[in-house]
């Protein structure tokens, strides 16, 4: 069989020009395969990304009851699906903040011997306004507004816009 685009065939008229039809077919085939690959991969990649969880927490939750905490102690409460920390300072004041360490997101706790918020994972420490003061945490804990209504203490998140 004689092919007009192989160099061996000696088609001297167009030595370095491949047949345009061949190129066209190749581009069509290559483009088709590429499109097929994209059409298969796109849904798979989207499938791998989990749907956003609904934040059922709202902006304000009951963090605890007034009688529940002695001065100089703390407890974890649920703020939606994340933990919050309610602290009663030695002077009797209530403070509520996020309990997720800003370092690597372990759950922090109140240490009455230090009178600080402490993370057991990497020894990070925060003061009672949530400010990071020692160890690896790079940012302060988010401080919530606290309100005492009746015997319930509410933690309220300050949403930005």
């Amino acid at each position, binding site marked *: 069989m004689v092919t007009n685009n192989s160099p061996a065939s000696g088609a001297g008229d167009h030595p370095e020009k491949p047949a345009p039809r061949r190129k066209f077919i190749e581009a069509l085939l290559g483009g088709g395969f590429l499109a097929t690959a994209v059409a298969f991969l796109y849904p798979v990649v989207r499938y*791998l*990304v*989990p749907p*956003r*969880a609904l934040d059922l927490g709202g902006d304000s939750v009951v963090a605890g009851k007034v009688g529940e905490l002695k001065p100089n102690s703390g407890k*974890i*409460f*649920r703020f939606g*699906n*994340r*933990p919050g920390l309610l602290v009663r300072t030695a002077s009797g004041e209530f403070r509520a903040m996020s*309990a997720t360490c800003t*370092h*690597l*997101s*372990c*759950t*922090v*706790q109140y240490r009455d011997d230090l009178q600080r918020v402490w*993370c*057991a*994972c*990497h*020894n990070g420490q925060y003061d009672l306004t949530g400010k*990071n003061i020692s*160890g*690896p*945490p*790079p940012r302060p804990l988010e401080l919530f507004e606290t309100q005492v209504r009746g015997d319930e203490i509410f933690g309220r998140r300050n949403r930005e816009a």
Partner: protein
Amino acid sequence: MAPLRAVRNWLDDRFGWEELIYPFKKKTVPRHKLSYWYFLGGITLFLFIVQVLTGILLLLYYKPGANEAFESVQYIMTRVQFGWLIRSIHSWSANLMIFTAFAHMFSVLFLKAYRKPRELTWVSGILLLFLVLGFGFSGYLLPWNTLAFFATKVGTEITGQVPLIGKSLMVFLRGGEDVTGATLTRFFGFHVAVLPGLATMLILLHVLLVQRFGISVPPRLQAEWAARPPEQREMKFFPNFMLRELMAWYVALGALGALAAIFPWNLGVKADPFVPAPAGIKPEWYFLFMFQTLKLIPSKLWLVDGEVVGVLGFGAIAVTWLLLPFFESAPPAPPRRWITALSIFALTYMAGMTIYGYLAQ
């Protein structure tokens, strides 16, 4: 034995059995005072086989899911006959396998067995080491206890520190923004399907490359043997080395059985996302050197978070390690001294930091 020979002849008739096993008959293993280090790769393979078998047994009763995982492991350990033993063997074998994989890696490093032409054997081996760590990390979460919960939180959060793609990678691993039952489902899938598939393919490649190139001889010994050929000694792979290797496996099995029976693995306390991380929490020993390093990095280095520096540092080290043979000289040139120095430093650093992490409060 006549029936056996008949089977062999039958196979030989059809697809040239003799020809197929010929390389194994011809294969030899160099014999010298460091030959014992050659057993470590085989022992790691043996422990992997133990993992596959005990893993399949655990699958008969294990249930993934935040409300069922802990209870199902408890059920395995308390109700299923010998369930405690199977789980204990799986946990112990996992830890021993990680140890022997690291020991194998360092022995290859110090015996200079990764140099040309064995670069790809090294690369496949390091990838297997990463996979083994992945097995450890994903399997650790499956009992859904407090320690595992926080280890997974920290580990995935570290992934989140990678610039640009970190956040998406973390969400992908966790199956959401937080570590939840969705994370457990994903980790279960990785642990029992994705990683075993990848590991099996890589093990085949790794072993095939080892077969192809034969066993390496340390450069100094190679030079001695070249100078005085009569001193060169070797043994046949089959049956001499094979039988020794099987004895090593048998010893490993004995050690494994004893450890699993005398020190059964604990289950711990069920994970609760709403309790603080317990005091004294630490990762498994094989992540301890990284954990301790991250603990020592200050929160800010210049303008960058300390974590980001740590993660990028470890990432860079991992890539360098993977590509180490490509920085090495080719035999018969002497091995590069800085690589030997780096190997000694790496071993000392890992061992030192692990002990420090273990003792630190």
